[in-house]
């Protein structure tokens, strides 16, 4: 009679000492009773006689149990460990017969655990690690300046002007207050020039952070004063090593940065990047601002806000108190300026934890998402391994049943099964940790390339999460065969001789397979949505040709003003001619403004109109272009003509306008031939053409109002009264193939124009836009990778289950074949079953996927979160794959020799 389930669970937890004694005595009684029955006694009489012969059973049993327990306790720890090792060896031996299965399980677990470890490592580095070489980073806070402006209402900004910063440096709540500003700059001249990321910092910056240079010194207070003659520069360790050979005599040598020669005064410690997680190559004191980074009156100018401010809160002061004091100081400063604002205040946000005043940074949000996806993959991996382990237990059920009959207690069996999954999980986890060493660095760089990651091993928290992952995986994957065993599914087969015609897939397998299928569909849905977003963003018409155009710029030093150097006109003209001669270059042009960079506004008037409508994207913007401009950059001229070489300084002033300007200003009439006034010019500028709209800054941009004027009708020197002053220079180069291949060649060709030429940059228009596409590209890539992995795992799981059940149903197949069924019919039978599981999984997955899509809807680009095509596609993909996964094993086992099968029973 089968024991009821609850009894079995109880037996499970009773001590083995009691069970052992009971077994021993029961055996003895049985033998005695049989012997007595052999002498002729009836069964009942025999039992009575045997009991008499035994004596006081209860007392004996109690004494025996006590003695057994004493014996067990006496086993030393050494013996226990030896036992465990023996068990582990037995587990490994057990898998030696199925190495493919074992390796597959280990790899699956390694992938699941590894994915989670990698993502949590990223989160840990973003959120929990303090910036490198910053002492006691918990007390360092970022300042956000808030208030209400009469124009735009309440605002928060992380930047301030220098006078405001100077006013709050002495706030007593802080040990110190410092400021910094980040700039891109160029170093050197001529062929060896290179671009660098620079930080201008106040003199107390390094002291506040507690960072000590590895060589030389940080900055002195004098270097912060305006007009300081010889500010020094601090190099990062990396730049010192790579570009200056780690030469310890570097202190005192001078470096040409943006046209000014700074002496090197110190080297920063390795991987130091301040409080931002962005790479910094050079540190300069604030007084460098007047030598080319910013304007010469930077210390008194209160109209430009360019400094980020940080402060270290004094020990014992609460952040709220520090905020209040800083707000008072800030308000007090504003009261002495025309910008007095009684609502002005300061908010503090900790430097660690990847937060801004609006919440987590974009990187933190992306990382959290990636961690969530990795968790889904982990669950799928565990479900898959549980499926395979349950199948394995079912394949070995005869052995298990025999062992149980020979005396292995249920508890020992349970320990063995859990030990199996634990050993596999530990090996998988170890493999994951080992591969982290090589994988995590490149992975971080690929996923979030803008962050300056510090190297260094996994933190304790991440290691703990890995161990927890291993334990959870072991538990999840082990308890499935365990529950199956306790419920007796495994031992039933033994009684029927292992040849039962009835078979059942088991609820556990169904649940596992449906679950895996559903989660795979969710990931595929996510992949589809992100792919559509990416495609929509990529195929957006920017109005110019992204793939075939390079923009080239010479980075002249600014010398404290934004005025253009006199040689710019000559050099760019030379560059234009030089670029034209490079093989593979089809067209070249010059323009004032450039995509992703500067654009210059100007007022435009239409005679006869008092007011003109305002455009959403802003404008009108005016740029002068050379004749080949539209053909070079790929903006179509929709009507009329473009700028030609016939348009010169002496001829009629003409312009080409953008389509949105034509539609906005002349909705019902034809702008061609009409007259407009540019700026303060009284003369007429005739509209001769309409060009396609462009997106100046990227995917989120709306088209702006543009006016294109001929290059030769403006000049650098406006005082020559030949027209407008030149405001900027960009060289555009169109290549015959993918512009990426010509980047280096064009750059070095232009850089080589003159020996002392400042740094020349050349980049494809695509790379200007590309960073904006990165979130969708990242999402699509990760979800596709994980979605395919999950689907593959689910397929393997289904294949294994189907193959096993087909093997179990051989008798049934044999009978059916004998009764006339074709191979086709048998295959259909099996496939129908597999398809049922897949459909349930797909439906569940589509429902979950719709919810998932709704959740991520805000992150997509012009793609609704609920996309029937994607949902249907993902569901269908699962079903198709499942049909194939069922059909293959069914077909392979389809040819059943009916006679042979029926005979073997």
């Amino acid at each position, binding site marked *: 009679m089968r024991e009821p389930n609850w009894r079995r669970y109880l037996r499970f937890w009773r001590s083995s000492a009691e069970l052992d004694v009971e077994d021993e005595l029961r*055996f003895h009684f049985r033998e005695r009773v049989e012997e007595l029955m052999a002498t002729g006694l009836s069964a009942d009489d025999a039992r009575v006689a045997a009991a008499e012969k035994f004596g006081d059973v209860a007392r004996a049993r109690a004494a025996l149990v006590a*003695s057994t327990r004493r014996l067990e306790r006496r086993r030393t720890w050494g013996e226990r460990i030896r036992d465990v090792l023996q068990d582990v060896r037995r587990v490994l031996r057990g898998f030696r017969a199925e190495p493919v299965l074992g390796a597959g399980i280990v790899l699956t677990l390694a992938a699941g655990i590894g994915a989670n470890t990698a993502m949590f490592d990223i989160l840990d580095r973003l959120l929990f690690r303090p910036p490198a070489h910053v002492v006691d980073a918990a007390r360092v806070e970022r300042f956000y300046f808030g208030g209400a402006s009469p124009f735009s209402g309440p605002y928060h900004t992380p930047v301030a002007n220098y006078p405001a910063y100077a006013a709050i440096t002495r706030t007593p709540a802080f040990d110190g207050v410092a400021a910094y500003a980040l700039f891109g700059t160029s170093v050197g001249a001529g062929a060896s020039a290179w671009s660098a990321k620079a930080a201008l910092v106040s003199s107390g910056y390094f002291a506040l952070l507690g960072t000590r240079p590895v060589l030389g010194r940080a900055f002195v207070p004098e270097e912060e004063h305006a007009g300081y003659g010889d500010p020094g520069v601090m190099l990062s360790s990396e730049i010192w090593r790579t570009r200056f050979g780690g030469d310890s005599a570097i202190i005192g040598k001078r470096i040409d940065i943006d046209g000014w020669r700074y002496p090197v005064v110190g080297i920063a410690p390795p991987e130091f990047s301040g409080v931002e997680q962005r790479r910094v190559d050079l540190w300069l004191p604030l007084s460098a601002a007047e030598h080319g980074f910013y304007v010469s009156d930077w210390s008194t100018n209160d109209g430009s806000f360019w400094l980020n401010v940080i402060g270290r809160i004094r020990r014992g002061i609460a952040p709220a108190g520090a905020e209040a004091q800083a707000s008072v100081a800030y308000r007090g400063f504003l009261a002495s300026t025309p910008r007095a604002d009684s609502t002005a205040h300061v908010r503090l946000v900790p430097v660690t934890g990847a937060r801004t005043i609006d919440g987590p940074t974009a990187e933190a949000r992306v990382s959290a998402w990636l961690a969530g996806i990795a968790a889904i993959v982990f669950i799928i991996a565990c479900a898959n391994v549980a499926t395979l382990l349950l199948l394995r237990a079912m394949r070995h059920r005869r052995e298990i049943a025999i062992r149980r009959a020979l005396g292995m207690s249920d508890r020992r069996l349970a320990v063995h099964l859990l030990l199996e999954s634990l050993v596999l999980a530990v090996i998988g986890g170890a493999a994951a940790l080992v591969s982290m060493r090589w994988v995590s660095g490149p992975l971080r760089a690929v996923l979030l390339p803008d962050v300056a990651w510090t190297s260094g091993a996994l933190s304790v928290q991440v290691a703990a999460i890995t161990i927890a992952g291993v334990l959870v995986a072991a538990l999840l994957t082990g308890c499935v065969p365990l529950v199956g065993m306790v419920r007796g599914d495994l031992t039933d087969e033994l009684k029927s001789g292992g040849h039962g015609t009835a078979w059942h897939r088991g609820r556990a397998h169904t649940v596992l397979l449906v679950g895996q299928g559903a989660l795979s569909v969710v990931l595929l849905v996510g992949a589809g949505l992100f792919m559509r977003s990416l495609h929509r963003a990529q195929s957006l018409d920017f109005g110019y040709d992204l793939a075939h155009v390079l923009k080239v710029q010479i980075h002249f030093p600014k010398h404290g003003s934004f005025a253009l150097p006199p040689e710019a006109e000559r050099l760019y003209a030379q560059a234009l001619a030089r670029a034209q001669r490079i093989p593979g270059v089809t067209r070249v042009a010059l323009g004032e403004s450039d995509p992703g960079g500067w654009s210059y506004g100007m007022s435009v008037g239409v005679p006869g109109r008092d007011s003109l409508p305002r455009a959403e994207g802003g404008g009108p913007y005016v740029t002068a272009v050379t004749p080949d401009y539209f053909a070079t950059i790929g903006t179509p001229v929709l009507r009329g003509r473009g700028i030609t070489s016939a348009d010169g300084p002496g001829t009629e002033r003409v312009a080409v306008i953008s389509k949105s300007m034509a539609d906005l200003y002349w909705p019902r009439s034809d702008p061609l031939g009409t007259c407009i006034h540019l700026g303060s010019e009284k003369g007429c500028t005739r509209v001769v053409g309409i060009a396609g709209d462009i997106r100046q800054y990227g995917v989120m941009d709306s088209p702006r109002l543009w006016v294109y004027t001929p290059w030769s009708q403006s000049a650098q020197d406006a005082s020559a009264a030949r027209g407008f002053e030149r405001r900027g220079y960009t060289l555009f180069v169109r290549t015959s193939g993918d512009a990426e291949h010509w980047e280096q060649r064009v750059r070095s060709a232009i850089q080589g124009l003159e020996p002392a030429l400042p740094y020349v940059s050349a980049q494809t228009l695509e790379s200007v836009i590309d960073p904006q596409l990165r979130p969708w590209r990242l999402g699509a890539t990760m979800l596709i990778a994980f979605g395919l992995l999950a689907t593959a795992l689910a397929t393997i799981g289904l294949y294994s289950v189907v193959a096993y059940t087909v093997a179990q149903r051989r008798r049934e197949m044999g009978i059916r074949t004998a009764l006339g069924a074709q191979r086709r019919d048998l295959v259909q039978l099996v496939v129908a079953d597999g398809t049922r599981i897949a459909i349930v999984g797909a439906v569940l997955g589509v429902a979950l996927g719709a919810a998932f899509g709704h959740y991520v809807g805000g992150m997509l680009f012009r793609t609704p979160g609920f996309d029937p095509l994607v949902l249907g596609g993902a569901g269908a993909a699962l079903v198709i794959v499942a049909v194939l996964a069922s059909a293959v094993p069914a077909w392979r086992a389809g040819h059943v020799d009916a006679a042979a099968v029926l005979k073997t029973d």
Partner: protein
Amino acid sequence: MSRQPERDFLQGTLDVLVLQGLAWGPKHGYAVARWIEEMSKGTFQVVDGALYTALHRMEERGWIDAEWGTSDRGRRARFYRLTAAGRRQLRAERESWTGYVAAFARVLNATTEPA
């Protein structure tokens, strides 16, 4: 010495009989009981409870080892066998018992002589 199921053996006598029973190889508890009964041609009737208590006690003392195995009929049973210490104990007890029995015989035989 008649068939009295309640007959209590002295602890020591049961021990040496069990040890001797195991001298020829491992046996389960029931086999030991049968062996004693057969070898003594029914003279000694083992009280089973006392037997198992003795077996466990000697296991605790380290004279015998125990292991689970299968009986000849395929049932799960606990098998006992002598340890090296157990063999030594058996030898010592045999010597003392043999000496004791010899002395007993001498005395009893002597008293049948006429005065």
